[in-house]
């Protein structure tokens, strides 16, 4: 009998540990990048709904893109600054100008900024894109699983993905020009 009770207790503790470990943000990517490795960008093939910035009823109305999906894998062969954001995030608001400028620079060498929004309603995200006149592509992570794969738990967070689809640099928090310069150099380097 004591063995059974101990076993049940161990099972409950195991369940608790498993639950906490699966719910907490993973830092596997950060550790690998810190060691100079370039781990493969997770869930690159996951199809996410495309967010359109155009106003309702106008040319490029969001309804025209309803059902359209995109993925990180579609940008394979290009340097990508993957930026996680949400319309309610003040720091995300502050970095849009930097990202938009970086987009101009990256695009000259085939690269791009790819925004991914999560924990955010589509209408709010689209309003944000219109307000900040964002021209780079954006996807909506409706389940939060794509963001979770990157260990994202605070916004904004950005990742530089190289041409091979591997993570080259990580910025958790608001990005700075130095981070974007590094991405631009990566794009310029092999173009």
């Amino acid at each position, binding site marked *: *009998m004591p063995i*059974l*009770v101990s076993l*049940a207790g161990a099972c*409950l503790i195991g*369940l608790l540990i*498993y*639950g906490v470990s*699966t719910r907490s943000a993973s830092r596997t990517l950060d550790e690998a990048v810190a060691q100079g490795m370039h781990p493969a960008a997770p869930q690159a093939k996951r199809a996410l709904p495309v967010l359109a910035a155009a106003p309702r009823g106008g040319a490029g109305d969001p309804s025209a893109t309803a059902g359209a999906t995109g993925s990180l894998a579609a940008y394979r062969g290009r340097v990508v600054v993957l930026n996680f954001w*949400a319309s*309610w995030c003040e720091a995300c608001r502050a970095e849009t100008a930097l990202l938009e400028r970086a987009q101009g620079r990256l695009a000259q060498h085939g690269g791009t900024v790819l925004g991914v929004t*999560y*924990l*955010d*309603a*589509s*209408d*709010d995200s689209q309003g944000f894109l219109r307000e900040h006149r964002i021209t780079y592509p954006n996807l909506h*992570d*409706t*389940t*939060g*699983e794509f963001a979770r794969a990157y260990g994202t738990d605070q916004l904004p967070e950005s990742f530089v993905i190289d041409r091979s689809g591997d993570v080259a640099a990580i910025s958790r928090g608001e990005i700075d020009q130095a981070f974007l310069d590094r991405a631009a150099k990566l794009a310029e380097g092999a173009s």
Partner: protein
Amino acid sequence: MRALAALATLTATGAIGVSAATYAATPRASLPTIERRVMCVTCKIPLNVAESTQADRERAFVRGLIADGDSEAQIERALVSQYGPSVLALPSAHGFDLSAYLAPLVAMLALAATLALLLPRWRRHARAQAAGRSAADATSTLTPADRARLEADLARFDG
């Protein structure tokens, strides 16, 4: 002709009854009910106690769906499609989340089984102890001389 009219009346009454029953079966969604079941995704607290811009946005989203005549289930589905499953205050009833419902049940069953097994054992132990005590009491019965001396002592204390 009269029979036809009666049949038409009966059919109409039946149709009204059915539609009324259907309406009664799907009660109109209300904001306070939804607010209790949903989280403010930025503040990580139930929407009914959340005060923030994002909470107001979520309330506006829910109000819009209520105005469209959506049911509570439809509204919850719409919220999940926009904010992900973490918007729901209660864990879903499948996958790992199911353990949130099953673990307490299993723990209670295990506790009940433990008690069911241990209680008779404790009772037997308590009975054996009581029996031992009464046997000890029986062996330590006072002699008439000791009893007389004890009563005399007690009388002296009372006096």
